[in-house]
C-alpha cells in the first residue's frame, strides 16, 4: 500500500445532523487513481461521508462538520475555501440519473461554459465530444446531440451525467450508488466505465451491492453506525477481513 499516492486525507472527521452524531471521528486516506468503495448497512453514514468530500452537506442547514478533509494538501473546510470551487474540482454522480432537461450537448457544455473553461465556439464542441467519449457514450449519442438528455435510457442518462461531471475536469469523482437505479446491463457498462475512468480520476463510490464493491473497487471501506470499521484492499476485505463485524456483514450474517 505504500506505493499508493494519497489524494484525500480525512482527519478526525465528525458530523452532526442537529443533535445526531452521524460520523464519529473518521480517519482515512483515499488513494489517487483507485476506486474506493464505501459499504455498510443502511444509515451507517456512507452518503453523509461522501457528501463531506465535496461539501454538499453545506446545503443541509442542520449539518455541523468538525475535522479536516485535506485534498491535495488543502483542507477544504478552511475558512478561505469557497465551497463552490470545491464542487468544481470534486465531481459527483448520484443514485438517480439526473440529466438536465436540456439537449445532450448542453448538458455537457453547460458547466464548462459557466466556469469559463471553454468559450462557445472555441473548444466547446471538442470538450463535449471528448467528455462523451470518456464516458463511453459518444457512439450512442453523436447523432442526437441536439435531442434532450432526458430522452435517453436510464443507463445512458447515467453515463451522460458522468460525461457532464468529467467535462468540468475534476480530480475526484464521487458516486453515490450510481447503478442502484439501473438494470444489470447498464450497471455493467457503468462498472466497466468506472474501471476505465480510474486511470485518470480518483473515484469514491458508495454501493449497497457488495458484489459490485467486490467487482470494481481497489479499496473497500466498511462503515457501521457512523464508524469506519475496516478499510483495506478489497480482496483482503472479502477473503480475510480482520474485523468480526466486517466478516459478518459481507457474509450476510447481518444487514
Amino acid at each position, binding site marked *: 500500500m505504500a506505493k499508493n499516492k494519497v489524494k484525500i486525507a480525512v482527519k478526525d472527521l465528525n458530523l452532526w445532523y442537529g443533535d445526531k452524531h452521524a460520523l464519529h471521528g473518521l480517519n482515512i486516506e483515499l488513494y489517487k487513481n483507485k476506486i474506493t468503495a464505501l459499504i455498510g448497512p443502511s444509515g451507517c453514514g456512507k452518503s453523509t461521508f461522501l457528501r463531506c468530500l465535496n461539501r454538499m452537506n453545506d446545503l443541509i442547514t442542520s449539518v455541523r462538520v468538525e475535522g479536516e478533509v485535506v485534498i491535495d494538501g488543502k483542507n477544504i473546510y478552511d475558512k478561505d475555501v469557497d465551497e463552490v470551487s470545491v464542487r468544481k474540482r470534486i465531481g459527483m454522480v448520484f443514485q438517480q440519473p439526473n440529466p438536465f432537461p436540456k439537449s445532450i450537448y448542453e448538458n455537457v457544455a453547460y458547466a464548462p461554459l459557466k466556469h469559463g473553461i471553454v468559450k462557445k465556439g472555441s473548444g466547446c464542441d471538442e470538450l463535449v465530444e471528448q467528455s462523451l467519449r470518456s464516458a463511453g457514450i459518444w457512439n450512442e449519442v453523436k447523432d442526437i446531440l441536439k435531442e434532450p438528455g432526458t430522452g435517453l435510457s436510464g443507463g445512458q442518462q447515467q453515463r451522460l451525467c458522468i460525461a457532464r461531471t468529467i467535462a468540468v475536469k475534476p480530480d475526484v469523482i464521487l458516486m453515490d450508488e450510481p447503478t442502484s437505479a439501473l438494470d444489470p446491463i447498464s450497471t455493467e457498462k457503468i462498472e466497466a466505465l468506472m474501471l476505465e475512468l480510474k486511470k485518470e480520476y480518483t473515484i469514491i463510490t458508495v454501493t449497497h451491492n*457488495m*458484489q459490485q464493491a467486490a467487482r470494481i473497487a481497489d479499496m473497500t471501506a466498511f462503515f457501521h453506525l457512523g464508524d469506519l470499521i475496516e478499510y483495506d484492499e478489497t480482496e483482503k476485505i*472479502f*477473503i*480475510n*477481513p480482520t474485523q468480526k463485524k*466486517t*466478516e459478518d456483514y*459481507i*457474509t*450476510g*450474517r447481518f444487514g
Partner: protein
Amino acid sequence: MLAKYENKLLKIKESIFEIGTGLISANKLILEGFENCDIEKFNGAKSYIKNISNKTNHIDRDIITILALQSPEASDLRAMVSYLKITNELLRACANTRNFIKGFVNVCSEIDLKTINDYAIPMQKSTVEALEHAIAMINVDCVDEIQECFNKVLIAENKTDELFEMIEANLMEQSKAIEEFGKYHKMLSALRKSEKIADRAMSIASLLLFARIGGEIHQR
C-alpha cells in the same frame, strides 16, 4: 443468514469430520493389528473407510451447490475452498490406508519384530497422532488452539518422516543379507503408506489453518 444455508455448512463439516474419524479409527486398528499381526483387525480397519469416494463426491457436490447458490465470503468461503481440497486429501489418505493394509497383511508375519517394535509402531503412532490433531482442528474455533494443533501435526508428521527414513536405511543396510527381495519391497512399500498418510494429515491441517485464519493457502 438463512437457516437452510447454515445447516448445509454444518452438514459438510460433519461429513468431513466423520470421514476423518473413520480414517483415524482405521489407522488405530492397524496399530493394534501390528502387535500380533492380527489380520482380522486389519480387515476390520478396512470397514471404517469404505465407500469414501461416494462420500467425498457428495461433499464436493454440496460445496459446489453452496458456492453456486449462496456465494459465501470470507471465512465461509475459505472453509469451502479448503474442504474442496481436503476431500482430495482424505480420499488419498484412505486409499493409502487401504493399500497399507493390503500390502501389510501379506508380509506382517514375516517381518522381524524388532523392526516393527522399534520403527513401524512408533511411526504409525505418529501418523495416528497427526491425523487426530488434524481432524480435531475441524471443530476447534479458538485461533490459538488451532495453531497449537497445527504444530502438533507438524511434529508428528516430521517424526513419521524420520522414522521411515530410519526403516529404509536399516533395511538397506541389511539388504545384502536378505534373501527374499519381494517381501521386503512390499513391506517397505506398505510402511511408506503410513508416512504418506501423515503427509495428508499435514495437508489437511494446513488447509484447515487457512480456513480458520486466512493468509496463504499453504501447500507442500
